[in-house]
């Protein structure tokens, strides 16, 4: 029975490891790559190597860095006393896209999810506690999704951050972004919890 040549089979095997890519999709992608002009495929290969070789995790905040620290940590115009904790780089970029936040970040690298076997020790928590203990932050914003996993992580962090602040001998303000109705949303279709949180977080106009 005919099979793919070994380099193609290896390529399919590697593609199959990507999230959301099954065996059929991996085959389709591999065959598409082989039909492309070689220079385009090699450019893809080069960009992959560059990303892996030249980018590392910022030891301070957990975001991507090309130099010793990331561009956000190197930016002296940012407010040192305000640290926004996010689950991953995509959440950081979502907040940055608003141009409305001028503080620092801390990327956890995920959220606590016991069902997936992810606990506090698997996240970038120790360096966050070190930042608070070192007196780097007056306020920590826990910008995690309002899901069971995000809420559990936020509540866990709130507890250990308070302990870290106590060790420092100072208080740290812990906040979470407001919860409520999305812009353009419909009150009539919102669930009970969302309405409850929206009513709790109401503000004067």
């Amino acid at each position, binding site marked *: 029975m005919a099979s793919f040549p070994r380099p193609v089979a290896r390529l399919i095997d590697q593609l199959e490891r990507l*999230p*959301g890519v099954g065996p059929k999709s991996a085959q389709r992608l591999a065959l598409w790559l082989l039909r492309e002009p070689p220079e385009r495929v090699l450019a893809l290969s080069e960009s992959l190597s560059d990303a892996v070789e030249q980018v590392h995790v910022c030891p301070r905040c957990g975001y991507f860095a090309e130099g010793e620290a990331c561009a956000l940590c190197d930016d002296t115009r940012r407010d040192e006393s305000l640290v926004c904790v996010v689950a991953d780089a995509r959440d950081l970029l979502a907040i940055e896209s608003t141009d409305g936040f001028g503080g620092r970040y801390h990327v956890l690298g995920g959220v*606590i*999810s*016991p*069902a*997936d*076997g*992810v*606990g*506090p*020790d698997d996240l970038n928590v120790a360096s966050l506690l070190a930042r608070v203990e070192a007196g780097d932050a007056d306020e920590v914003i826990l910008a995690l999704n309002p*899901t*069971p*996993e995000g*809420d*559990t992580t936020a*509540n*866990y962090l709130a*507890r250990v951050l308070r*302990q870290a602040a106590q060790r420092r001998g100072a208080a740290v303000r812990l906040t979470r972004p407001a919860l409520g109705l*999305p812009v*353009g*949303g419909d009150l009539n*279709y919102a*669930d*009970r*919890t*969302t309405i409850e949180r929206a009513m709790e977080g109401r503000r004067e106009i």
Partner: protein
Amino acid sequence: MPTSNQLALCLRRREQGESDLIVTLLTREAGKLAAVARGVRKPKSRQAPVCQLFALSRVQLATRGDHGGLPVLAQAQLEETFYDLRADLDRSARAAYLVELADLAIPDHEPQPTLFDLLLASLAALTTALEPRVVMHSFELQLLAELGLEPVLDRCAHCALPLGDEAALFDAPAGGLIHARHGGSAQATSVSPEAVRAMRRLLRPDAYELDLTTLRMPPMLARPVAAALRSAVRCFLDAEPRALAIIEQLADEPEP
């Protein structure tokens, strides 16, 4: 497009494509099933809360030919989120364990109304229990009993004689408690008479009537019970739930 309307608890979710999810639901009438939830990862999706872990909803599923034959979540009304579980990582981890255990133990498309009710009652009890581990161990025992895998606790599983005052081991491969003099397998763990009594109490036919939210189990009792039930789950269900590792990790952390 045939539809069905039923109460469903979200056990698991997996991302599919740009904005869809495949959710594993435990329903009272149709058992465990997977369904496609379209567009629920978009910010304005009305069904997003329904597809979160522990969400109990009244769902309407539409059966279609595509998506590998999986039904599609057509409409849903959120009934309960067990929101208070999120305040405490230990409770949340134990709730995730119960849900994972139900997912591992219950076969697809086999209605298990008793287990459905047991899981809901256990999640509710976890939100307020003085000692969440009591709820967890009660669920483990009741689940095994309901599946016909009840460990032997009232006599020696090796020689069938009463245990009496002799030292006992919990040996899951042997089926439950055995006299320590029989030796037991490598998985056997020693259990005190108090730990045996605690397990029996949680397994009694009237255990459903116990108020699990007020029961206490001191660490001296809880440790051997946890070890025995972990080996029972591993042996009888051939499962190694991931949430258990997190629960154990948290137990090693110093108290706040």
